[in-house]
């Protein structure tokens, strides 16, 4: 196909005709030029239907030329790794070989089976259709939903990992300018000339904003020359960063601006010369919003037929891209400004059928210009309906009475293939709304402008309702110098002289949003407000009649503004229609609030380089390589990679666990315990501090001794546990759970800094300083004796003592503590010697078949002893008493330590609290699922009364049966009784409540 709509080259066009590019759309190959967007190239090729509508499957064409586009959102990219759902064709630059397809329409957009449903069902698919229709029976909703979602849907997410790289950059600047149109450029120049550090960004590939599509002379020349002059000046200044192709997606508190710079998207797929996109986070002293204004379409019958476009979009395609998107134009307008479109069309050599002006008269300069060109102007009339389905064939025009929303004359027919409409301009207030500022209605421009804000924010140009170009530029200069002054640069004046601009005199515009039809809105042809969600004027009025009066409710009921365009095109019209139908003013109706993102931003850009192994730091012990070399499977515990179990060749996990458990109980096992949190606590009040933080007493713990302690929150619930050793009179080393280390340190610091600053105590995290290996089992002493220079006999080294010694030639602290219930020694050496010491221990243990074990075996062995794991057996709602651990609570401590008072609260004294017990399944081979719910009575109607759940459950190779820890209401006094566990597969199993200490209840084995 040839580019039928491409017209002769002109000086103001921004395409490079020497660089033709081929691209594929819906399987067909087309040609465009460098500088085109997909949208301009498709229009050049005369492609009318580019998609189907969401709900009614109506054929849809390109409407806009910018971020407002609701229809031309495509699937772009040729592979499952590089495909992008829903970029706007109007903002996607063409590159050689670009592959795009419609996101809606099956089997294809020209012949859509769903359209039949849309046509027949159109009148029967009002807002809330799905809720109303598929409400009963409720049980079938899940089935309905699947089908409905299949019929809907916009775009497909990539099925393969994103091969591209992304990065982030942080900036500080004096003045951040959003938008590089005439206002933004002028502001940037004025600010930069004060020496302020300036950043200016714009979402388009070129700076210039509205001037890129304008033919209005500046200093007697094309506007692009003025743009080039300013950009050249800014580029040579050292204090300005220019960011084209950079969308400000969010404006956040305290003047933080988020920008997504598209660095290679315009070059092709998976370009590897640089990162694909870069997020800039700019903390600015002053922000200037110069985001301009979006043209508003008018709402009229069948206004979605391909060929219905925004007036300014038509001008843009003609002036910027050399594309006239049709042959015969009817322009409908409420203002003088849009007359430019008819003039542009006429000057491009194609026919303007008529300008339909809804005002009774206008004598503005542009109106006179159009009339002088011989263009027919129809005042006081409106296009009330469009004929055609896949392309406009003609329009029905009639005199309208806006006051009482009626048609006041007979209908005239005009043949045409394009309808351009303009209802005036809406300032792009999105960013100013992001920080919570409420927009305010400005009657003069019939649009919302930014309201009061607490940000260091300035607005200028179209955003503040200033539209005449000379005013826009002088507003830019003024705002730029003021913002710089507010940032401490310059004196608020500027040197630049306003260029010579002849702004045409314009007569007042008419505030009109919705064109009446001869039939009432509910019976008139569909008048679309939000194209992407198929929201019509009739739908909004129906929602109002059904009682949805708040604009936020109307939005949610009709889906107005819910599309990927977030209501950019339709929201103001929707609010105006709501206001009218409720007999309110637009300010009374109010507006919904825009939130980030301004346009959709890829996850890749937001993640930046923080992916895969850079997503979250991983922590490894000094012995990690040994674990890798010896077949360890790893488990994540916090950020730590801990060996989970060490499978030998051919072993299953269960076989490995049984081997590890038996080896430890019968001979000796070794565990890498380096990851346990370790906090060095020093100071003359360290002991008193421990007394206040732990539930048990610390006053009498002698140097050289260790003690297990439990920490509660002030509500009395267990929060962490571990062993703390007394290193010196004023020095302790506290161990915490692996995952709880950071939280515990923070907890200690909180109490010290906020409540007890008078205590002299210091905390330092030393987790990473030490490598810790625990040897456990009846032969552990024999192993240690071989490599230790100190007598470690039971007489010399008692249970719960610690000693300093030399192990394998390395200075070590050895703690005689046990988490397995076996004779155990925890050897701590400086981390650098960890691997050396581990290897020495392994060598010494070889004759006893020393067996490395991981966290899973550790869990099994400790559970056999009824030792809790905080966070597994507790969940923040469990007291020490609930755990039957009242022995760990100090009874005579002077200070009312953290948590103590809460245990006497009424709720914590109940005897039917969930309490920790052991469970023995009746079937000794059956391992209860962790998390399984417990009931007292088997035969209960559903929902059953749940009385607890399983917290830990394993098969014990040492005991030869399965067992579990659980919490059960009043469980401690129910030992010996049966409970039932209804499982998710529908079966129910029985278990007996017992003591949680299954193995060696007297604790003899650890004391030998």
């Amino acid at each position, binding site marked *: 196909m040839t580019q039928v709509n491409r017209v002769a080259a002109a000086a103001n066009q921004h395409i490079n005709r020497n660089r033709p590019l081929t691209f594929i759309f819906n399987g067909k190959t087309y040609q465009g030029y460098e500088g085109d967007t997909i949208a301009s190239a498709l229009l050049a090729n005369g492609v009318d239907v580019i998609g189907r509508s969401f709900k009614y499957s109506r054929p849809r064409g390109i409407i806009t030329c910018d971020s407002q586009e609701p229809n031309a959102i495509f699937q772009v990219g040729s592979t499952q790794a590089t495909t992008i759902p829903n970029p706007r064709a109007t903002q996607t630059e063409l590159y050689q070989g670009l592959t795009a397809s419609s996101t809606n329409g099956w089997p294809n957009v020209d012949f859509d089976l769903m359209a039949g449903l849309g046509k027949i069902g159109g009148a029967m698919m009002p807002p809330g259709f799905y809720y109303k229709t598929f409400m009963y029976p409720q049980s079938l909703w899940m089935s309905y939903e699947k089908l409905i979602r299949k019929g809907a849907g916009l775009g497909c997410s990539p099925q393969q990992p994103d091969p591209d790289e992304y990065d982030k950059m942080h900036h500080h600047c004096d003045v951040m300018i959003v938008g590089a149109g005439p206002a933004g450029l002028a502001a940037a120049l004025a600010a930069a000339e004060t020496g302020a550090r300036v950043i200016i960004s714009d979402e388009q590939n070129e700076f210039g904003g509205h001037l890129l599509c304008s033919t209005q002379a500046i200093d007697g020349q094309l506007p692009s020359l003025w743009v080039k002059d300013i950009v050249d000046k800014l580029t040579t200044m050292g204090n300005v960063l220019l960011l084209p192709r950079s969308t400000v997606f969010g404006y956040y508190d*305290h003047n933080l601006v988020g920008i997504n710079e598209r660095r290679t998207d315009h070059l092709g797929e998976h370009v590897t010369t640089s990162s694909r996109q870069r997020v800039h986070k700019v*903390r600015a002293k002053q922000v200037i919003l110069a985001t301009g204004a979006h043209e508003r379409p008018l709402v009229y019958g069948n206004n979605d037929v391909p060929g219905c476009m925004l007036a300014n979009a038509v001008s843009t395609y003609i002036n910027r891209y050399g594309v006239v998107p049709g042959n015969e134009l009817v322009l409908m307008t409420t203002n003088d400004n849009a007359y430019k479109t008819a003039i542009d069309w006429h000057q491009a050599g194609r026919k303007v059928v008529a300008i339909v002006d809804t005002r009774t008269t206008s004598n503005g300069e542009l109106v006179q210009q159009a009339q002088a060109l011989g263009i027919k102007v129809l005042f006081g009339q409106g296009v009330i309906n469009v004929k055609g389905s896949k392309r406009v064939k003609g329009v029905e025009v009639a005199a309208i009475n806006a006051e009482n929303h009626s048609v006041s004359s007979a209908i005239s027919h005009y043949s045409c293939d394009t309808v351009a409409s303009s209802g005036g301009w809406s300032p792009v207030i999105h960013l100013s709304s992001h920080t919570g500022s409420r927009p305010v209605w400005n009657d003069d421009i019939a649009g919302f402008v930014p309201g009061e804000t607490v940000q260091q924010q300035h607005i200028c140009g179209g955003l503040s309702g200033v539209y005449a170009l000379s005013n826009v530029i002088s507003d830019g200069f003024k705002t730029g110098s003021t913002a710089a002054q507010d940032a401490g640069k310059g004196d608020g004046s500027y040197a630049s002289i306003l260029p010579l601009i002849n702004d045409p005199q314009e007569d007042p515009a008419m505030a009109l949003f919705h064109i009446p039809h001869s039939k009432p809105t509910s019976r008139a042809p569909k008048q679309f407000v939000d194209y992407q969600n198929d929201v019509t004027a009739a739908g909004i009025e129906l929602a109002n009649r059904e009682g949805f009066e708040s604009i936020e409710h109307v939005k949610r009921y009709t889906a107005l503004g819910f599309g990927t365009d977030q209501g950019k095109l339709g929201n103001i019209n929707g609010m105006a229609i709501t206001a009218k139908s409720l007999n309110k003013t637009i300010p009374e109706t109010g507006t919904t609030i825009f939130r980030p993102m301004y346009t959709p931003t890829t996850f890749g850009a937001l993640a930046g380089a923080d992916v895969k192994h850079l997503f979250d730091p991983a922590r490894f012990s000094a012995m990690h390589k040994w674990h890798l070399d010896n077949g360890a499977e790893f488990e994540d515990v916090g950020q730590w990679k801990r060996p989970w179990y060490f499978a030998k060749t051919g072993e299953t996990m269960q076989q490995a666990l049984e081997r590890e458990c038996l080896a430890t109980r019968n001979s000796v096992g070794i565990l890498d315990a380096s990851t346990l949190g370790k906090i060095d606590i020093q100071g003359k009040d360290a002991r008193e501090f421990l007394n206040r933080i732990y539930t048990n007493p610390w006053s009498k713990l002698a140097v050289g001794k260790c003690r297990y302690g439990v920490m509660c929150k002030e509500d009395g619930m267990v929060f962490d546990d571990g062993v703390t050793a007394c290193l010196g009179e004023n020095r302790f080393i506290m161990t915490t759970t692996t995952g709880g280390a950071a939280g515990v340190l923070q907890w200690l610091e909180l109490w010290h800094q906020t409540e007890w600053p008078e205590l002299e105590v210091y905390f330092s995290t030393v987790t990473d300083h030490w490598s810790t290996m625990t040897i456990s089992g009846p032969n552990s002493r024999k192993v240690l004796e071989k490599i230790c220079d100190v007598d470690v006999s039971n007489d010399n080294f008692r249970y719960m003592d610690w000693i300093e010694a030399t192990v394998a030639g390395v200075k070590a602290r050895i703690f005689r503590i046990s988490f397995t219930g076996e004779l155990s020694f925890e050897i701590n050496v400086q981390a650098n010697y960890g691997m050396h010491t581990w290897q020495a221990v392994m060598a010494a243990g070889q004759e006893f078949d020393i067996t490395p074990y991981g966290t899973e075996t550790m869990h099994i062995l400790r559970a056999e002893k009824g030792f809790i794991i905080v966070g597994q057996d507790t969940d923040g709602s469990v007291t020490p008493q609930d755990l039957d651990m009242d022995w760990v609570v100090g009874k005579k401590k002077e200070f009312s330590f953290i948590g103590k*008072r809460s245990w006497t609260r009424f709720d914590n004294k109940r005897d039917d609290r969930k309490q920790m017990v052991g469970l023995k399944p009746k079937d000794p081979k059956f391992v209860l699922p962790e998390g399984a719910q417990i009931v007292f009575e088997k035969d209960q109607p559903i929902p059953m009364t749940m009385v607890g759940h399983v917290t830990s459950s394993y098969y014990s190779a040492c005991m030869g049966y399965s067992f579990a820890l659980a919490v059960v209401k009043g469980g401690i006094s129910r030992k010996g009784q049966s409970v039932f566990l209804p499982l998710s597969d529908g079966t129910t199993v029985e278990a007996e409540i017992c003591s949680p200490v299954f193995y060696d209840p007297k604790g003899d084995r650890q004391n030998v």
Partner: protein
Amino acid sequence: MLLIHCPYCEEMREEEEFSPAGQAHIVRPLDPEVLSDEEWARYLFFRKNPRGLHHEMWLHTHGCRKYFNVTRNTVTYQIMESYKMGQQPSVTASEKGQS
């Protein structure tokens, strides 16, 4: 994203260096044992949720690791002041006519 002044570091730093630590100026009762359940519960569980000025604690987690106080407007997110632990706010809700 807030920009927070740490009164110990005496610098404006990014919010990501800090952690919020709840309402400020809650004093632990000196003798918890003499309190009724209700009085103890008030200390434990009851927190303000004002629309407007709020005094809250922050921790300079990835900085000096000091807890400090901030007076912040919960509507606009403006931070009026930050001050050290043990000090009193100079901007308070009653001055601004808020409850």
